[in-house]
Each structure stands twice: as structure tokens, then as C-alpha cells.
């Protein structure tokens, strides 16, 4: 036993590249044997299942109970696809969170014959929050007792783990396969894999981390007030996540983000953004934060919320020479573009005569009021085309373009391509540049 501990210690402290390669070779030779041992260990310790898939998504080994059901959960939640998309990136363990808050750990492993093996550990619930959320969903949908019982029986075998435990199992999985330590990466739920956007977990927080978090928060709010673009938002979110284990993990991260949203909103209203706009934005992002079903969307939400306030402050700074009537008018359009907007209604809201407001708007902004409404709606359409699966006709109707032809024409005039083409080519070519 003593000898074995010394060997392990030596392996952990080897750093030279050649030695690392040797270690890798040895790990690959033994990986299948090690994985079987790991699968037994994680199941024995907390009933966490182990799954092995080949490169064609074929399952050939699992230790999980309710194999068919959990296999479906893995697919429905999008986590299997998320892991498959990472095939070209072996040697990195991922923690994924799908719908219903079921969490999974995954890693691609090299095999002796040159093939690759996807190893997944899961499912696990993070504390009790998602279970309670599931129950509330069942209540809301009036699901019968019979179906409810079956559902809860299957979910009853899912172990409830703290986030730190999940992270430890991810580290153990990686060590089993590669004989080296690493930090697992958190993948966004149901999002296509994109290199460089992951949130990497660092070791647990100590007192200095709280100080760093506070400093980071202060800096972000300072930058926001100045309208200076900053890149630290995701780092801030990661710092927040280190404190996950103390209470109800998901609730805690939501509370932190809601407080940060309130602070950003206050900074925005102090820097010229109309109070109504700042509060509307704040409420919208709080709604999105509350709708988070897993922990892994938090980084994106934080970034999106911060950028929304950043854009508003920036816009205010750029249009500071515009009259309050025009700013009020723009704010009204920005917050009501999903409704049917008429000049009469906008003028009534702003408290000016239609003709006066229309002339004033054109003079100060250089574009007609109707063109501005189109501009705001086309921006919204672009977002909807890329982030929703709504039919183009539905988007056109939602944004009150009247009919599809008109929507196509206005969109093409501003973006250069039709909405359908825009959606089809998104991500495949250079970003579209708007026509001046």
C-alpha cells in the first residue's frame, strides 16, 4: 500500500512533457480496466451511473438503473449531443446541465486501438431544487397521480449531489483516464458547443475570493457607469459560482444575479437611462434569471444582462444632445416594438402633437420615425431568427410588419439578405453588415 501511494504521488508531480506522454500511453493501455473499476466505485458510493458510448453514439456499457429512461433523459436534455459535439476535444471533463436540472459529467477518452470513447457519469440532481421545480411543473400541468408516481419513481433513483461533489467526480474521471489532475469545464445547457466560451471551474473559494468578487463587481459597475466595454463579466459569474455549496445552489446563484441586476439597473438610471427603461430591463432580466432551470446558463445570462444595460448607457451617452421628447419617444419604441405602434399613440404617450413630434424626431436623429421603428424591429427580428425556432411568418406577425412581403422587403433593405437566408447562413459566413 505504501509503495502504491508513493507511485501515485510521483505521477501527480511529473510535469515534463515527455513524461506526460509516457503517462498518457500507460493510461490508454489500462483505461478500459480503470473505467470499469471507476464505474463500480461511483455507483457503489452514490448510485451515480456510468455510461460508455462509441463515436457513433452507440451505448455499449452502463451501470445506471432505469437504463432506457435515463438514456432518454440524456438525449431529451440535449446533453448527449452536447458531449458528442465535443468529440474533437478529448482530455477535458465537462459538467453539463440539461432540462429539469439533471447534471451529467462527460469526457472523451483515447483508446488503445486509436478509437475514442465517450464516458458519461450521471444523472445527478444538484441539491433538491430541481426536484421541487419538477413537482411544481407537474402541479401546474395537472398531471395525474398515476403518471406522477411513475415519474417520481424513476427520478427517485437519481442521486442528489452537491456541486462540489460533481466537480470531484469529474476530476476523478479525468484522473482515471489520463493519470493527471485538471479542472472540469461547465457547458451551457442546450447550447451548441463553441470553443472558448466555456466556464472553467477553479478550486473552492476562500476569503480572498470574496474580496476579489467584491472588487470585480465594483469594477464592472464602474465600467458600466463610464460606458466602457469590459470583458470581466464571465469571470465575475465564475467567482459567484464558487460559493455554490453553502445552501440551495441554484437559488443562491439566482439571488446573487438578481442583486447584481438591481445594481446595474441603478447605475443605468443614474447615467441617463430613463427610469422606466432601466426598470423594464431589470424586470425582464430578473424574469430570465428566475427561469433558469440549471446552473450552467448563469454565465450567459449575466453577460447578456450586463451588455443590455451597457448598450442603454452607451446609447444615452451618444445621444445626450437629443431632446427629452425624442429620447422618450425612442425609449417608448424600444420597449413597445412588439405592439402595434402608431404615430398617434407614440405622440400621445410623449405628450406632443403628432406633426411636431414627427418633425422634431427627423430633425434630431436624421431618420424618420417610421424608419426608426423598422430599425428597432429588424434588430429584434434578427435576434428572434437566431435564437428561436419561430416560423418567419410568426416573427413577422409578432413584430407587426403587416404581411410577409413587407417584412422581407424591409429586412432585406436593412440587412442585405432575406430573413430566411439570414437564418440559414447564420454562423456559416462572416457576420452580416447592416446597410448604412
Amino acid at each position, binding site marked *: 500500500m505504501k509503495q502504491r501511494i508513493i507511485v501515485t504521488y510521483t505521477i501527480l508531480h511529473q510535469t515534463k512533457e515527455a513524461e506526460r506522454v509516457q503517462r498518457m500511453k500507460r493510461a490508454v493501455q489500462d483505461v478500459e480496466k480503470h473505467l470499469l473499476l471507476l464505474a463500480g466505485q461511483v455507483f457503489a458510493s452514490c448510485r451515480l451511473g456510468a455510461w460508455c458510448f462509441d463515436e457513433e453514439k452507440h451505448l455499449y456499457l452502463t451501470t445506471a438503473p432505469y437504463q432506457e*429512461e435515463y438514456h*432518454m433523459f440524456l438525449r*431529451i436534455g440535449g446533453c448527449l449531443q452536447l458531449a458528442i459535439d465535443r468529440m474533437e476535444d478529448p482530455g477535458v471533463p465537462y459538467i453539463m446541465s440539461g432540462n*429539469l436540472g439533471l447534471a451529467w459529467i462527460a469526457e472523451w477518452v483515447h483508446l488503445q486501438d486509436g478509437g475514442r470513447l465517450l464516458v458519461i457519469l450521471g444523472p445527478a440532481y444538484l441539491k433538491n431544487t430541481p426536484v421541487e421545480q419538477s413537482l411544481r411543473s407537474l402541479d401546474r400541468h395537472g398531471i*395525474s*397521480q*398515476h*403518471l406522477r408516481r*411513475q415519474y417520481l419513481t424513476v*427520478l427517485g433513483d437519481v442521486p442528489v449531489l452537491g456541486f462540489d461533489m460533481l466537480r470531484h467526480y469529474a476530476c476523478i474521471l479525468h484522473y482515471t483516464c489520463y493519470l493527471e489532475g485538471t479542472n472540469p469545464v461547465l457547458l451551457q445547457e442546450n447550447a451548441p458547443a463553441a470553443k472558448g466560451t466555456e466556464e472553467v471551474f477553479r478550486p473552492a473559494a476562500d476569503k480572498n475570493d470574496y474580496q476579489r468578487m467584491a472588487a470585480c463587481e465594483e469594477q464592472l459597475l464602474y465600467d458600466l457607469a463610464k460606458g466602457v466595454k469590459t470583458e470581466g463579466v464571465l469571470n465575475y459569474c465564475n467567482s459567484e459560482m464558487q460559493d455554490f455549496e453553502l445552501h440551495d445552489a441554484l437559488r443562491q446563484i439566482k439571488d446573487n444575479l438578481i442583486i447584481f441586476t438591481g445594481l446595474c439597473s441603478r447605475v443605468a438610471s443614474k447615467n441617463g437611462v430613463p427610469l422606466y427603461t432601466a426598470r423594464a430591463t431589470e424586470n425582464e432580466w430578473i424574469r430570465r434569471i428566475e427561469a433558469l432551470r440549471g446552473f450552467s446558463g448563469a454565465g450567459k445570462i449575466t453577460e447578456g444582462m450586463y451588455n443590455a444595460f451597457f448598450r442603454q448607457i452607451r446609447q444615452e451617452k451618444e445621444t445626450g444632445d437629443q431632446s427629452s421628447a425624442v429620447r422618450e419617444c425612442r425609449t417608448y419604441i424600444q420597449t413597445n416594438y412588439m405592439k402595434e405602434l402608431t404615430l398617434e399613440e407614440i405622440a400621445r404617450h410623449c405628450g406632443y402633437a403628432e406633426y411636431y413630434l414627427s418633425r422634431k424626431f427627423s430633425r434630431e436623429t436624421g431618420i424618420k420615425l417610421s424608419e426608426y421603428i423598422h430599425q428597432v424591429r429588424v434588430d429584434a427580428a434578427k435576434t428572434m431568427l437566431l435564437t428561436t425556432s419561430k416560423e418567419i411568418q410568426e416573427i413577422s406577425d409578432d413584430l407587426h410588419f403587416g404581411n410577409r412581403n413587407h417584412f422581407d422587403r424591409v429586412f432585406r433593405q436593412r440587412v442585405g439578405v432575406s430573413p430566411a437566408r439570414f437564418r440559414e447562413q447564420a454562423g456559416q459566413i462572416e457576420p452580416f453588415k447592416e446597410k448604412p
Partner: protein
Amino acid sequence: MKLKQLEHYRDFIEAVQSCKSDVYFNSREGDRLNLKSTLSQYLFAAACGDRNFLAQGSMECQKKEDYERLRAFMIPEQNG
């Protein structure tokens, strides 16, 4: 229409996902699961282990072409 006993119900759910409109599974207990919704898919997956659940429920598609997509999973209706 009735569903056959499914050997791998993930194939069935994948076929449902390819359908053009909503697909419902009506259970004997009165649950109406829209199999295009994620929560319903989870519920369906959890209940499929019970053979009676499938045998006593029925499928309903909103578009005729969707019945064609799911034909392989359904028990043909008897004429007359």
C-alpha cells in the same frame, strides 16, 4: 391510434421530434402529453417502462403526414 410496445422508445421520440405539428399521447388516466414538449417527453420516458401505459393510451397527430412518420410505431387500425 394505439402504440406498439416500444423496444427503444428514444427512436420513437426522435421520430416525434421530426413531426411537423404537435403529437399527443392520451393516457387512460386522462393525461394528455404533447410529446413535442420537453416535460412531456420526460414524463413519457419515465412511464414507458409500464407496459399498460402504452397499451391503454392512444396517439393523436394534428397532421395526417405525421401519422405516416410514426406508422412504424403504431398498431394498424382494423377496418370495419
